[in-house]
């Protein structure tokens, strides 16, 4: 792993992001509808509407004016101002939604990676055993369900039914003034959506890890390890697991890239004030600058995590390094 390799990979990543950004710019504008049509107010005179269009630069031709302006400002780190959130900078609007999403999906990923990999490894190692029959069955069920399908029964039972947890949102307005009370309030709101996203991710990780372990188990070096008289636990930990982890790295990295994108349906079901909910709002309002800002962030995160995957893969697999 040398500097030239690093630079080449980074350059590739930048080109990828640039291409995605331009593609998104075109794509959003190709969608039917436009910001002024969505926010059309019957009381506005044509002159007022024209002034409004001019304010957002929508009166200028798409190419080159709008595109050039967009690229120019993006490069300088200015993502423009949101149309829906009248004049608020996009960076601010997006910034406020990133925290909740990372809290929810990021935490879910962290738990799911640990539990899912462990569950998958044990299932595959003792194929047909108790852990496998229970774990793999449950994993398949959760893996095949969209997050909101896992989330809705949780809301019905634990929020509306038993009333143990709040049904939606991240905070109770005016619930508590002291920091400890606020943290507990957020934690209470977090339980159900976190459970939903974690169960779904555990399902995905454990199913993939299980098949990776089953494949690894048949390798000759596992027979060598058995012939060495090592305990089953040691063979799994030192020989099977590190090898089975390799195909998982790429999958995990791609998944992590989408942490930023949030689980859109999940956030909407739980009214979680994250990027997923924001994306839906921006789409409905045809808020081009906001959509561009969100998707720029998502694509940068996906590309960066893929870059990270390359490096982690190199660290785990000596064959890639040389």
């Amino acid at each position, binding site marked *: 792993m040398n500097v030239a390799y690093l630079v080449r990979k980074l350059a590739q990543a930048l080109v990828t992001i640039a291409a995605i950004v331009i593609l998104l710019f075109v794509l959003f504008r190709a969608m039917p509808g436009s910001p002024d049509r969505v926010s059309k107010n019957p009381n506005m005179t044509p002159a007022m509407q024209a002034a409004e269009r001019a304010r957002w630069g929508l009166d200028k031709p798409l190419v080159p004016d709008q595109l050039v302006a967009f690229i120019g400002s993006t490069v300088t780190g200015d993502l423009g101002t949101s149309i829906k959130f009248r004049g608020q900078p996009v960076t601010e609007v997006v910034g406020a939604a990133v925290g909740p999403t990372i809290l929810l999906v990021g935490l879910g990923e962290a738990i799911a990676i640990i539990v899912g990999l462990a569950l998958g490894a044990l299932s595959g190692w003792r194929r047909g055993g108790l852990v496998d029959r229970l774990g793999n069955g449950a994993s398949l069920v959760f893996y095949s369900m969209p997050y909101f399908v896992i989330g809705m029964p949780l809301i019905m039972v634990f929020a509306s039914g038993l009333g143990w947890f709040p049904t939606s949102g991240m905070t109770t307005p005016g619930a508590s003034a002291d920091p400890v009370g606020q943290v507990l309030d957020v934690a209470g709101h977090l339980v159900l959506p976190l459970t939903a996203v974690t169960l779904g991710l555990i399902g995905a990780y454990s199913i993939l890890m299980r098949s990776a372990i089953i494949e690894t188990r048949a390798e*000759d*070096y596992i027979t*060598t390890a058995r012939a060495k*008289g090592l*305990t089953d636990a040691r063979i799994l930990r030192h020989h099977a697991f590190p090898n089975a982890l390799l195909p998982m790295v790429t999958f995990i990295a791609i998944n992590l890239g989408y942490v930023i994108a949030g689980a859109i349906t999940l956030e909407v079901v739980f009214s979680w004030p994250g990027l997923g909910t924001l994306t839906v709002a921006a789409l409905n309002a045809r808020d081009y600058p906001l959509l561009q800002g969100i998707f720029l962030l998502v694509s940068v995160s996906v590309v960066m995590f893929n870059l990270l995957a390359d490096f982690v893969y190199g660290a785990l697999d*000596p*064959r890639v390094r040389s």
Partner: protein
Amino acid sequence: MTTEVRGRLGRLLPDGADPTAPLLEVRDLAVRFRTPSGASVRAVGGMSFRLDAGEAMGIAGESGCGKTTTALSLVHLLPGTGRVSAGSVKLFGIDLVPLTERQLARYRWREISMVFQGAMNALNPVQRVGDQIAEPIEVRLGQSRDASRKRAGELLELVGIPRQRASAYPHELSGGMRQRAMIAMALACDPAVVIGDEPTTALDVMVQAQILQLLERLRRELGLSLLLITHDLSVIAETCDRVMVMYAGRVAEEGPVSRVFTAPRHPYTVKLLSSFPDIRTGRRALSMIPGSPPDLRTPPPGCLFAPRCEHAMPVCAVETPPEINSDDGVRVACHLFTAGDAVRRDAASEVKA
């Protein structure tokens, strides 16, 4: 711990060992596999053999004749549904067959270690070679990490690899080096028996010769006892004292290499030997053995080789031939030879033809 390379001599025997018993004595070993349909296949049937200290025995035969299965069954390493269904495997007089996994772990690698075929996949691709060699020393012999690493370095030098290469990963070594590293790993715990399962098969002839020389040298220096599994008869001719020819999971013929190779008795041995080219004689068409080995799910009655044997007699299709021991140390399982002596019946005089 001493830094010099120790041999087997003077090493403590495991608890319950009988010092007068032969090193390894296998009797009537049978191995069965369960097929997905629930049927049971006898992959190895009634194998008996013995390996004495310091001796090298080759096991020869076609692919699928049960050579590897026999070797793996000695310390219960059979894959999937395979298990030893009958017989005994006595190491220093201790029967390994009835032992549990936990009890057996004591004998794996410390007493019986293996060099597998095609060392590429037999070594863990993401672990340094030195660590893989040190692992059994640390885990099985309870030595410190430093001592294990040091010992791993010595073992690498012993097999002709500079000890600095301990930090290499398997893919950074050539095929021959990997095989040497595998041999060093097999020696890690000073085992009583080393089983080589096609240790030279994936190598080119020059490297093959080097590996065979290495095994020969280690045998002399360390007093190793070697069980060498190969389909390559020339490897056995070069390295082994005795040879056991297997066919369809049974012993066809067994005896000193010098006798079996120069005067084969079993018609299968004859065919097997003539299917190898001899560089000293002129060009000739290599003879093939018509037909293929029997399907062990539905083994024919009597001698398993009878359907392919040009000397088959009526009795061959009915009775399993008994193993006949002759005075010159050769054992053969063929109806052409009668009990008591190894004089061929009339029909057998054509065998060499």
